[in-house]
């Protein structure tokens, strides 16, 4: 193998599994370390710069970081990254706004329209306001937040938490047009904005219109996301005692748990496939079980059963093609959470914006520019339903594109990520970071009692970590951003690092192809998602090969190295944002 190029910022970035997995590439270990040092406000700012909604995401993020967390490979459970994010949000200084970027009084003369007030649009606004843009935001709701407001139940995300973080952005001077449903893209374009950003989400929930009995059962059969919005806005205040929720995604979980709080006593979730194939996050499934909601799997809906003009239940096919008799499950109401669709009835076909066969806009995947150069898309509106953190990441990219577009620069001349590599040595054998690997188990999150929380849909179920639990959990982080940097010229091949490494990561072997090397190491390097760090040739002709897979970043290799050929260096990586070089 060729020597690893550690000058490439993506090499060490990939070692930081959580950050690499995060669509917005939030510097996770950095903020966790700040939490362990009780520097909550600084931790909040690291988050805010990167993911814009730390308080929201600290509760309802899809957490792609946690399955990626190295701790999950080293022992069983990953670090509770999401809940730690909430710790820094809960404990931040209220004066945190003083750290926000200043908004120039003199604008740069460019006007941008944001259609939709969800996470993607708000991120664009957050990134562009400090650069002097004038921004108009349009949304049909009476407040900002988009689907974070209309569909996430309050027992998971209290309204006040959302409002605070939305207002941080709106207070930058965004000109809001709430209760304003944009009905015509052409009309927007006619106002000569320098750029238009569409962040309208995937607002239409899928229905099962052709299932027998759908028409007759109208009134007792609801599309999940519309029903959730009805609850949030107070149009719906109760539900029948026996409820069936059809679907296995996170919306289904929100529906069933909300139904439990609206009077549903026998709430059941029915999914077509096996439980293992459910799309919902494991912890949300767990929460639903905790609230006595059974999940019935391998049942495909056949019909709504109507008797005397009244919905009495549903008929299901058990398994698929098993020829077993169909199953009847009685219920009073049905919530359909079988997916969401994009819908752009307000964009005229001749507006110059092309759509593909699935009804999604034709976009450049990197710049998010549509076929009409001044129109950009982001969030669920761009590539279909994903999640909040993806919407934020796309908002950042769209903001970069819009900024380049308005400045007349090519959209490919994008700013590069900001990186920094800083030595961690302090004295002879001490480190600036906490290198002792805590062997504590993942902390459980304190919860509101079930009896109490089921009575009031506004009561938040998870109470969050307090400072003490947060501190204990933060120390479980392995500091994967503190990199093991190897200087081949200093190495005397004494083997001290090989002998000391608890995880048998380090090897001095004859070079070979990656495939061959992976089989010749002290421990088999079978995780192809993790790179091998290979040095140039050493005096004996061998090379150093380190499998990054389960490195604990404990620094023992560097401590036991007599010549400082190993160095612990903190790698800080921050994705590019609009306005940077």
């Amino acid at each position, binding site marked *: 193998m060729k020597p690893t190029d550690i000058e490439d910022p993506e090499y060490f970035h990939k070692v930081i599994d959580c950050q690499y997995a995060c669509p917005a590439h939030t510097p996770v270990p950095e903020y966790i370390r700040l939490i362990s040092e009780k520097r909550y406000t600084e931790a909040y700012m690291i988050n805010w710069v990167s993911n814009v909604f730390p308080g929201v995401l600290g509760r309802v993020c899809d957490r792609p970081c946690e399955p990626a967390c190295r701790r999950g*490979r*080293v*022992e069983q459970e990953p670090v509770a990254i999401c809940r730690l994010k909430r710790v820094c949000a809960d404990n931040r200084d209220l004066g945190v706004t003083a750290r926000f970027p200043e908004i120039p009084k003199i604008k740069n003369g460019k006007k941008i329209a944001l259609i939709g007030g969800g996470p993607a649009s708000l991120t664009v606004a957050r990134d562009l306001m400090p650069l002097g843009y004038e921004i108009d935001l349009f949304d049909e709701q009476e407040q900002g937040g988009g689907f974070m407001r209309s569909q996430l139940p309050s027992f998971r995300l209290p309204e006040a938490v959302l409002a605070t973080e939305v207002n941080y952005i709106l207070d930058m001077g965004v000109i809001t047009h709430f209760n304003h449903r944009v009905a015509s893209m052409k009309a927007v374009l006619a106002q000569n904005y320098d750029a238009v950003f569409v962040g309208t989400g995937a607002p239409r929930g899928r229905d099962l219109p052709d299932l027998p009995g759908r028409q007759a059962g109208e009134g007792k059969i609801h599309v999940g996301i519309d029903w959730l919005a009805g609850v949030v806005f107070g149009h719906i205040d109760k539900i029948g005692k026996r409820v069936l929720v059809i679907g296995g995604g996170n919306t289904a979980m929100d529906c069933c748990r909300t139904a439990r709080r609206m009077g549903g006593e026998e709430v059941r979730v029915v999914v077509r496939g096996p439980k293992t194939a459910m799309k919902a996050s494991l912890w949300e499934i767990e929460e639903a079980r905790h609230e006595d909601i059974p999940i019935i799997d391998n049942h495909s809906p056949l019909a709504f059963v109507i008797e005397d003009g009244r919905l009495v239940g549903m008929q299901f096919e058990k398994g698929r093609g098993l020829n077993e008799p169909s199953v009847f499950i009685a219920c009073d109401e049905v919530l359909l959470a079988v997916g969401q669709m994009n819908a752009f009835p307000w964009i005229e076909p001749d507006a110059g914006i092309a759509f593909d066969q699935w009804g999604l806009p034709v976009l450049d995947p990197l710049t998010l520019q549509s076929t009409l150069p001044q129109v950009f898309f982001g969030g669920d509106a761009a590539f279909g339903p994903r999640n909040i953190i993806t919407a934020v990441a796309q908002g950042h990219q769209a903001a970069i594109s819009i900024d380049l577009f308005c400045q007349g620069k090519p959209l490919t001349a994008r700013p590069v990520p900001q990186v920094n590599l800083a030595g961690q040595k302090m004295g*002879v*054998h*001490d480190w600036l970071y906490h*290198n*002792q*690997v805590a*062997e504590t188990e993942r902390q459980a999150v304190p919860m509101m009692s079930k009896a109490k929380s089921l009575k009031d849909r506004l009561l938040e179920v998870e109470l969050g970590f307090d400072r003490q639990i947060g501190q204990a959990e933060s120390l479980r982080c392995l500091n994967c951003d503190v990199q093991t940097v190897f200087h081949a010229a200093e190495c*005397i*091949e*004494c*083997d*001290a690092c*090989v*002998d*000391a490494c*608890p*995880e*048998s*990561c380090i090897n001095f072997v004859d070079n070979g192809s990656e495939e061959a090397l992976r089989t010749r190491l002290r*421990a*088999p390097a*079978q995780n192809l998602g993790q790179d091998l760090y290979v040095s140039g040739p050493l*005096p*004996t002709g061998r090379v150093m090969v380190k499998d990054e897979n*389960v490195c*604990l970043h*404990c*620094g*023992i290799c560097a*401590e*036991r*190295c*007599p*010549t400082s050929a190993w160095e612990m260096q903190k790698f800080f990586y921050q994705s590019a944002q609009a306005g940077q070089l």
Partner: protein
Amino acid sequence: MTFTRPTFRHPELAPNAAGFHRRDYEGLISTLCAGCGHDSISNAIIQACFELALPPHRIAKMSGIGCSSKSPAYFLGKSHGFNSVHGRMPSIATGANMANRDLIYLGVSGDGDTASIGMGQFIHAVRRNLHMLYIVMNNGCYGLTKGQYSATADKGSKSKKGPANLLESIDLCELAIQLGAGFVGRSFSGDKQQLVPMIKAGLSHGGLAFIDVISPCVTFNNNPESTKSYHWVREHSEATNTFDFVPFRQTITTEYPEEVTETVTLHDNSIIHLHKHPLGPDITDRRQAIDTLEDHKAQEMILTGVLYVNPESLDTHEILNTTARPLNSLTEVDLCPGIGALEEINAGHR
């Protein structure tokens, strides 16, 4: 500074034939200087015991005083151990062996502990051919007392402090061969590929197995002019042979070309396959072994590898025809069987 190693180990490491993991053979985190050759030897011992699937509780590790003699704290943490007075490890090992011949005895000593204060002990343990593996971690200096030359420092070698060593050096391997050790090898802490199988072979030998391991002292004796530095040893060493060690329990799957292979079967039917030049020395010949050592010394080369093996050597118990019972279990009745027994003996002389 790290005082305890994390207990996490690579999840895909397999256990050995006896069901033990490598961690079961580890010890505490080393407090020796970073880069000390002794740590590599400790790890070679761990690896060898792991690969041989020795139950840790069947091993007794003995040591004296010095950097090397501290090292048993860093390996085989679940085995028996005895840290004796300076240079007295061989006596303690002898006593232990007399009391319980079923344990596997592993003596760890240094060049000071063996070639200076413990010289008298060392040579007599070799003469008795005590059933043990005797490892010397040889760095040519006294690392615990600021690096003065030891008795194994080569004449003319220079340590970090500058002036050359003016005294003759003692070659422990030559001594051991002369005094009847049945297995003698020399290796280098920086070459685990050679060291691990050598330790495995030594542990399988029936009498005293002696291994001299050159182990650079990174703090006092690792400058390029020192003949015990990483640099010098790598530039000036030549192996007698490369070899594979096959414990008797394993089936041999590799075919070796006849003309370059010499096979030595040890007491327990383990086999050493030597790959060497057809004209190379016969390692079962004591005279050739010493000649080869001296020839290489004259060329300023360090000869490593298995230097001498006598598969027929007898250990102390066999030589002295001792009772199979542990000595400490012998009672007065056993040792003084009384007038009747005496008369029987006397009658035999009449």
